[in-house]
């Protein structure tokens, strides 16, 4: 890298003014990198949280085995599903291609921290002991233990505030005494602090409004080899107007949209990213522009001795890119650390991924490029004719 783009056929490298300038004014550079790095860190956190939202929105769906669902036409999202008579599932079961249609009850209820006695909301799921609920078949065996109304199967990945969750823990879901008899590890996402699975009868005692033969979700599995679209259409054709059949993808899209569009969450993150980029670009512009202003005489001299303005522009771009790259490395490391910390403390699925690294690097370079292009206009002020006194 140098003042002029190198053109193949000769040896000897050109002096990188951009790099030298960075090294020379160390403390200024460190301060600038802190600013740029902080912006990049913000990007990582914003995008991380946003992605966590996306993942969280369907975190629970992920662990459930189903190809389609039957839900009430009032379905809003997992915790506000509306209910329907579970007889509707018999209609779905009669459609060709359908292997099973099982009712599920979902709701939010307070769980007592066995250590402190405080209550925190969890996602409660009422599931029949013989229902092969989990996508991971190895987890399904535990569900048999739910034949007792006093038993609970919990997700160990629940947040620490829920207190001890290991097998043998005795606690309460609202006012129902329960004993943890089995556990698994998955994660609940944003929906609640954790997940507790209970017998449908227990669920109805916790949620009296769910009494009777109602269901919140009907989980439908297809026969192997059946055409998903046609099967879904067949189910829909059999169902009355109070319910709808949604494919897995449709359901996930709905829940995601609920979190990211219907609520301002998505907007908050998007504008957060935009603001971080804006502030970062402004900081970098200030640094680059003041750097040019401080070196107007030198730049004018280079123009005078025959450097093209293009070459000088490239060096400003190079300097911007250097700031970006040098700020990126520590920011990415710190972000990875914060991700690990946040996912531990808040139970959010935050993790660094190559795609995220590339995305943030791309945004960083775009931001640096934009600032450099703005700053470059100052180069016009470098007039070689003013160099002679």
């Amino acid at each position, binding site marked *: 890298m140098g003042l*002029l783009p190198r053109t193949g056929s000769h040896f000897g490298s050109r002096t990188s003014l951009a790099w030298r300038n960075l090294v020379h004014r160390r403390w200024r550079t460190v301060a600038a990198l802190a600013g740029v790095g902080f912006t990049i860190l913000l990007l990582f956190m914003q995008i991380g949280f946003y992605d966590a939202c996306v993942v969280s929105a369907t975190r629970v769906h992920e662990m459930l085995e189903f190809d389609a669902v039957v839900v009430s036409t009032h379905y809003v999202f997992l915790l506000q599903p509306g209910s329907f008579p579970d007889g509707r599932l018999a209609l779905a079961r009669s459609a060709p291609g359908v292997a099973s249609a099982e009712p599920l009850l979902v709701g939010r209820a307070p769980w007592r921290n066995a250590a402190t006695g405080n209550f925190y909301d969890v996602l409660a799921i009422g599931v029949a002991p013989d229902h092969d609920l989990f996508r991971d078949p190895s987890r399904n065996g535990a569900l048999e233990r739910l034949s007792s109304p006093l038993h609970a199967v919990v997700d160990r990945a629940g947040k620490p505030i829920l207190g001890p969750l290991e097998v043998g823990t005795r606690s309460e879901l609202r006012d129902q005494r329960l004993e943890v008899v089995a556990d698994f590890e998955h994660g609940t996402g944003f929906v609640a602090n954790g997940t507790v699975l209970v017998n449908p009868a227990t669920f109805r005692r916790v949620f009296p409004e769910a009494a009777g033969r109602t269901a919140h979700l009907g989980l439908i599995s297809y026969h192997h080899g059946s055409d998903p679209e046609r099967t879904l259409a067949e189910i829909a054709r059999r169902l009355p107007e109070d319910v709808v059949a949604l494919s897995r993808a449709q359901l996930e899209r709905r829940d995601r949209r609920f979190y990211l569009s219907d609520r301002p969450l998505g907007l908050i993150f998007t504008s957060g990213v935009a603001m971080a980029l804006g502030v970062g670009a402004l900081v970098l512009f200030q640094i680059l522009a003041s750097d040019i202003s401080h070196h107007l005489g*030198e730049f004018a001299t*280079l123009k005078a*001795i025959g450097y093209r303005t293009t070459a000088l522009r490239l060096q400003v771009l190079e300097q911007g890119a250097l700031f970006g790259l040098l700020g990126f490395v520590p920011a990415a490391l710190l972000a990875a650390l914060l991700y690990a910390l946040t996912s531990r403390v808040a139970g959010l699925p935050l993790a660094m991924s190559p795609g995220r690294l590339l995305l943030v690097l791309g945004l960083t370079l775009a931001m640096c490029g934009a600032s450099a292009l703005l700053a470059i206009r100052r180069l016009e002020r470098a007039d070689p004719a003013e160099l002679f*006194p």
Partner: protein
Amino acid sequence: MRPASTESGESLAVRARGVTHTYGEAADDGPVLRDIDLDLEPGEIVILTGPSGSGKTTLLTLIGALRRLQQGELAVLGHALAGLDDERLVAVRRRIGFIFQSHNLFASLTARQNVRLGAELHRELLPDADRLASETLAAVGLGDKLDSKPGELSGGQRQRVAVARALVASPRLVLADEPTAALDRDSGRLVVDLLQRLGREHGTTTLLVTHDHRILDVADRIVSMVDGRIASDVRVAESVRICEFLARTELFRGQTPGALAEIAEQMQRLELAAGETVFEQGDAGDRFYLVRSGAVEVLTRHDGRQDGGEKVLARLGEGDVFGETALLTREPRNATVRVVEPCELLALGQEDFRTALDRSKTLGEELRDILSLRS
């Protein structure tokens, strides 16, 4: 690019004709350069002097292609600057070495890296850029400061780094504005010696704006500007030579150097071919002559022989003078002078001659005594 030998530049380093420049829209104070004609030969060192505001810097920036030419013709290193696009102007600038009064070195680069910047522009110099930079710095006396940053150098040393940057690519033309103002005598001498060497070895032309009397001796010519015009253009070495000749004559022996220089400046150059007559015996005496080169014969006609029977009284060569007698005695020429080898004469008019002599009355009287002794 090699300088094209075109009608615009021939082999001159700089050729200016009728260059006129006005700053701003409203030419309130009129042009700052008026009708400048100036030729710089390859290898010449020309010093540009003149009072503040006389337009020296403006002329320098026009020649350096740093400002657009408004009026007149200007050819630099064979390229007519009028109407050149930016790209071409940059190409011209690359062959010029600029030395500014403010050195404008990059604080983040070492002396060698700063100088390298001047070499890196030239693809063919890139492989040797480090060596060239080191050598040029050594030539300006900074061989031991190669890796120092400007912050660790004195003002004079920084200026010398800037000079090295200007010279590292062996430019064909060097434009410098007060390059030695910040230098002590020895450093200033190093710089001008370097310019002189470049001129001798590479034919580099230097145009130097300076008021530094310590370096006037390097000038081949001194051009002085007043009020946007060239007021005088003196070939220094030539003037010195003429003064030396004059000082050796009995007529002007003892005159101060200043007086001699003034006389030299008033003298007119004549070029004559062999066989031509400078003046005839009996002509009215109106000028005094110095033989700059070539040879003439002084002849008298034999009395009574009108057919041209002549007697050669003397043969005069470089440094000899003649024609003073008629001016001093106010009588017609007492001999004929004819050119025998193509020659260059310097002639001083009657008025100037008398003024010069009268400057010291006693001197004039003394001379008349000398002359009377001669006859």
